[in-house]
């Protein structure tokens, strides 16, 4: 007998798809503070989470929201918050806490124009570097960036998986266009989606070393209340979790934080190549602009130009290998961004001179159009 496929065909907004993805991933705790254009995520989860025995709470500000998320995760919850530029700025200190204390959590940043209050209802991609270096101190970070509604769903699941797998905060950078856009998405309820849950210790409590240096770099994580009493601190700590100022303990600890991400680049770095094999011109784009790039490439091909697109879904860690590949094979690389040049700096940094790199920087609160990309191509090629 054939199994009946349970499927839901929905017209969803980016923010709504993020919620669906989060719930599929097992999110059972959300703390947030209202801010455009991320508010829908709070509103929907305030309805859905209590139905599923989860918890939604609106905190007094974004600092409190990320604090509650980290606390909930330490107690075993799969926790998320969602915000936009100003709130993301407020969260930075505690994002660093999640990094050093290795607490899994997901932070959605629906990017709007900045700096400061900026353009609350208009799109931007200007938090790319803040995502990378917003919190103080040297640290690795994982930041994902969807450009379709399907990707909002899939990448939210991935964000939770990475956070649990590597014990890191994971950022989901959604620009306002994608956050508020609606598209059709089919969700299969019995779909075989890989859901990763944190690895718990199997040793008895007295043998548990909470920040042990394992080959994978990721120590097993005991939840508060599970019988493993240990210390969690934002201070640089030894393998038992106690503060240390010994150089021989500090150095391997900081390096392990990097290693657990860097040795998994292949798993973490997601992107797509569209017709880049024979491309003379490759557009490197992410978020809503990747869609303009696809259109520009299609229109360019119609006019006899060999245009390809590298779409980046992983913003950090920077997809160096993929970018180097298109830099080697293309004559011209164009990086259109809704900022003054954040990812293009990275592209230029890894360029060995095989391709010429050009930028398109749009900071007027409007999406970069396919025509604008095409005219730039004509200008430089």
């Amino acid at each position, binding site marked *: 007998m054939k199994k009946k496929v349970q499927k839901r065909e929905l*017209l969803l907004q980016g923010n709504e798809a993020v919620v669906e993805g989060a719930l599929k991933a097992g999110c059972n705790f959300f703390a947030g503070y209202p801010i455009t254009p991320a508010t829908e995520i709070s509103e929907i989860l305030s309805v859905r989470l209590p139905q599923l025995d989860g918890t939604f709470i609106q905190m007094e500000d974004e600092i409190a929201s990320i604090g509650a998320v980290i606390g909930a995760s330490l107690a075993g919850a799969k926790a998320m918050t969602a915000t936009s530029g100003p709130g993301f700025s407020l969260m930075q200190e505690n994002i660093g806490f999640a990094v050093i204390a290795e607490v899994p959590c997901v932070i959605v940043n629906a990017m709007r124009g900045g700096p400061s209050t900026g353009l609350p*209802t208009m799109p931007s991609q200007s938090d790319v570097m803040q995502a990378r270096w917003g919190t103080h101190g040297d640290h690795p970070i994982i930041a994902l960036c969807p450009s379709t509604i399907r990707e909002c769903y899939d990448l939210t699941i991935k964000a939770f998986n990475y956070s649990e797998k590597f014990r890191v905060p994971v950022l989901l950078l959604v620009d306002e266009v994608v956050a508020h856009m609606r598209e059709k998405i089919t969700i299969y309820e019995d779909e075989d989606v890989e859901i990763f849950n944190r690895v718990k210790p199997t040793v008895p409590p007295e043998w548990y070393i909470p920040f042990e240096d394992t080959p994978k770099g990721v120590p097993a994580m005991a939840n508060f209340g599970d019988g493993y009493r240990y210390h969690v601190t934002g201070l640089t700590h030894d393998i038992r979790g106690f503060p240390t100022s010994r150089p021989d303990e500090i150095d391997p600890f900081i390096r392990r934080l990097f290693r657990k991400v860097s040795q998994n680049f292949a798993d973490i770095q997601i992107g797509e190549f569209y017709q880049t094999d024979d491309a003379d011109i490759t557009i490197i784009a992410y978020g*809503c602009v990747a869609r303009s790039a696809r*259109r520009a490439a299609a229109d360019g091909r119609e006019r006899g130009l060999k245009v390809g697109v590298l779409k980046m879904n992983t913003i950090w860690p920077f997809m160096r290998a993929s970018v180097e590949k298109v830099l080697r094979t293309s004559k011209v690389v164009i990086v259109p961004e809704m900022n003054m040049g954040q990812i293009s700096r990275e592209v230029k940094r890894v360029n060995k001179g095989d391709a010429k790199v050009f930028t398109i920087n749009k900071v007027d609160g409007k*999406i970069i159009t*396919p025509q604008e990309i095409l005219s730039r191509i004509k200008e430089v090629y």
Partner: protein
Amino acid sequence: MSYRYDIRLSGSGGQGLILMGIILAEAIGIYDGKYVAQTQSYGPEARGGSSKAEVVVSDAEIDYPKALKLDLLLAMNQKSCDDYYMDLKPDGILIVDSTFIKQLPTPRAYQIPFTRIAREKLKREMVANIIALGAISKLAPIVSSRAIEAAVLARVPKGTEKLNRDALKAGMTAAQKVKKISFPNTPAGFEDEDT
């Protein structure tokens, strides 16, 4: 080669344009089974200011999600009509709310007083957008009347089904009356089974 049909619904905040966009996208995407991308732009005002919703339709995955050259423009106030008329394709369809729009940029426009119909016939000004959706289903070859009705009823608050169904009907009837100008360039596959 796949086709692309670009729609812009425009007017001022509070006229229900974004809800219209959602309903239209749902009708075309979920009930008629095509690819859709719906976007909007709006100011900080909940009422007043300018507001627009866009729906892009295709038989393949949609890349650029915003409207390029318009196949259909609905203008619910004079400003939006003036601002966006130039984006219309030569054979694109212009539908205006003649309650507010007195100066037409082209004689080739469907003029229906959506807001007046809403006020006078249905006694609820807020259903002007649903009336316009009814008219769109008759004037533009992009959505079936059946799909639009299903989508409207799925989105409106409980207890207002009759009001909204009447609004749709009023829009369809008004559209039949003004359907004097013919638009020959209907893309294949867009024939409305009701006409």
